[in-house]
């Protein structure tokens, strides 16, 4: 769970999760181009690859090889552990 918080403590990694939750199953090239074109992030491919590695080791991103390409998928399950630890019940004012 410590890994999850560390993975989320970075704006680039949060943007990667935003983009994958908007459209799952992207290649590294696609993630790089979306970060550059939509968010103006001029990171190197190696840097983004390292960010993906952090997300993957935290379980927030999973990869699948299909044909000769590798695709990245958002896995929200580790986030459920957070809400399980600190449930966000609506406070009713009665």
């Amino acid at each position: 769970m410590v890994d999850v918080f560390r993975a989320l403590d970075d704006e680039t990694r949060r943007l990667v999760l935003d983009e994958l939750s908007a459209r799952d199953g992207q290649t590294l090239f696609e993630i790089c181009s979306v970060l550059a074109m939509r968010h103006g992030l001029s990171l190197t491919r190696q840097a983004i690859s390292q960010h993906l590695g952090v997300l993957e080791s935290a379980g927030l991103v999973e990869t699948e090889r299909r044909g000769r390409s590798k695709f990245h998928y958002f896995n929200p399950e580790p986030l459920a552990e957070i809400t399980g630890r600190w449930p966000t019940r609506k406070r009713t004012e009665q």
Partner: protein
Amino acid sequence: MKIALTSLFVDDQRAALAFYTEVLGFNKRHDIPLGDDFWLTVVSPESPDGPELLLEPAGHPAVKPYRDALAEDGIPLAQFAVDDIEAEHARLTSKGVVFTQPPTDIGTAFVAVFDDTCGNLIQLIEMKPDENHADAH
């Protein structure tokens, strides 16, 4: 100086010619025997005198690791411009072409990436007209 020809490595030149002409719609320009291989080029029917694309044999040992590494990360080796990317995506998908990236809005353009079945990923791009206009000023 201008770009007259660029090349792509292909696994099988005859299969590549079939894909690039019958599926993508390019025209054959040169088909000259060279030993076991061919000097095989195609051009776009929209610019028959424009740049030629050489479909080059992929036999050199450096080609496979080079292309495999690029394919893993989804990096296209060529980009073709289209007027209507949704129509091209539908047309090519109906012919069995596999896209690794569906048409995607990247701000100034729409792009998509498909597998050319010859060992390469190819990007399609449709520029947004407003952006072209803005660039001209």
